[in-house]
Structure formats: structure tokens, C-alpha cells
């Protein structure tokens, strides 16, 4: 279980001037030290200007963030506490923005879900957490709305994160913004 403690975080070795990129170092269970990058990227400039995607992970061979690797950190609590602290810093400098987390797979989505669920009391003074589900519209003729390819057209519907909702019922997307 990830326990967030904002008092116990790693120090950044690099912070971009506009607070959208951070680098810090984490020790792994095999005692190697690996640099991790945290990056907030605007999802789609024209349509979702106020939603930034959170990505983090080690650098791959091309210098990109590898967000699919599953590293065994010596102190996972400290790693995630650091990421949350950087997120709060980014949001304090961009208070109108929301951060989105896609969850590259069920494993990560499960991790985020449990992290938000079990740390709600520690986080609620800083962050507002939102879960997004997708729904398809039932038309009056009894059929469902379809997309251009004739497939069911699903629309995102955000709601306050339901802290009673367990990990067998994950949201498809997670968002958080500053509680101010």
C-alpha cells in the first residue's frame, strides 16, 4: 500500500523554470540509484487547454520517459510522495489547471486508485480528486449513439472520486486539481 507523506520526499535535482518537469533520484531494491523524471504535458492544446497529463518514470534509451517499466523502489512511499509534492508545486504555479492520469495499464490504474483512496485524508487539504467514467448515450429509438465507424460512442463523465469504490471498479481516467 502506498502511504503519502509530504513531509518525507526526495529532493529534486532539476526543476524546469515553468515547473512542468522535475528530475529526482530513487534508490532501487538492488541498491542502484536511478534518475526519475516527472513531466506534466498539455494533452491537446486546442481542445483541452487546462488538462495536463502526468507522466513519470526512468529515461529510456532515447531519453523519453518510460512509463511502462515496473521499478522496484526501496521506498515507494517516498517516490509517490515526491511525485504528489511536485504535482502540488506545479498546480500552485498553474492554479487553473487539472492534472490527468490515464494509467498506462490496469496495474498502474489500480495503483493510482488505491493511492488516492487510502490517502484521502492526507491529500484532501491540498487536492481535489476526480474520477472519469465513460458512458454511451441511449437514443429514443432504443439504439445507442454510434461513432463514424459504427461503433458505440462513449463520452467521458467526471465525478468526485468515490472513496468507497474498490479496485475491482477502477475509473478509466483520474484527475486532480488544487483544493483552494
Amino acid at each position, binding site marked *: 500500500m502506498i502511504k503519502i507523506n509530504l513531509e518525507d520526499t526526495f529532493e*529534486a535535482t*532539476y*526543476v524546469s523554470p515553468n*515547473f512542468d518537469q522535475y528530475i529526482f533520484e530513487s534508490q532501487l531494491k538492488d541498491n542502484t540509484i536511478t534518475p526519475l523524471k516527472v513531466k506534466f504535458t498539455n494533452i491537446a492544446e486546442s481542445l483541452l487547454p487546462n488538462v495536463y497529463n502526468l*507522466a513519470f518514470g526512468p529515461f529510456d534509451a532515447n531519453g523519453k520517459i518510460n512509463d511502462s517499466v515496473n521499478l522496484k523502489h526501496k521506498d515507494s512511499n517516498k517516490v509517490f510522495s515526491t511525485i504528489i*509534492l511536485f504535482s502540488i508545486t506545479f498546480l500552485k504555479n498553474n492554479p487553473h489547471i487539472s492534472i490527468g492520469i490515464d494509467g498506462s495499464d490496469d496495474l498502474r490504474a489500480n495503483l493510482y486508485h488505491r493511492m488516492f483512496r487510502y490517502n484521502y485524508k492526507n491529500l484532501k487539504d491540498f487536492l481535489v480528486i*476526480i474520477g472519469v467514467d465513460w458512458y454511451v448515450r441511449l437514443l429514443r429509438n432504443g439504439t445507442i449513439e454510434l461513432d463514424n465507424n459504427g461503433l458505440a460512442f462513449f463520452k*467521458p463523465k*467526471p465525478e468526485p472520486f468515490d472513496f468507497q469504490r474498490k479496485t475491482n471498479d477502477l475509473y478509466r481516467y483520474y484527475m486532480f486539481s488544487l483544493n483552494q
Partner: protein
Amino acid sequence: MKDSIQNKINKIQEIALASASEKNIANSRDVMESNNNDNLTKSIRNEKEAKLFFSELKSAIDLAKRNALE
């Protein structure tokens, strides 16, 4: 916000100032990272849908803030 956490944020802001005068490490190692394929982006097709989503997001945020006070 607790003073200790605010101090940590102040420290991060100092590092950002110091980093501004250095070579941009992050960008120099960073090949274009596109996040246009996430679930949310793929399902917003036009301005109208984006406006609707933001309206619903604002309502959800306002409700979540009220819930946090309870």
C-alpha cells in the same frame, strides 16, 4: 498549508530558478513526448464536447471541494 510543506515548495522554486540558468537537462534528453493518445483526448472530438466536458469537470470539482469539507 503546513509551513514544512510550504518550505519544501519554496525550495523546489529555488531549484527551478537555479535550473533556469543551467543547460536544460530535461529537454536535451527528452525526445518529443506526445500524450495525444490517452483515453480522454481520444474521446473529445470537437469544441462543443470539450466545453461540455469542462462544464461537467467544474461541477465535479466544486462538489468534491464541498465533500472535502465534511
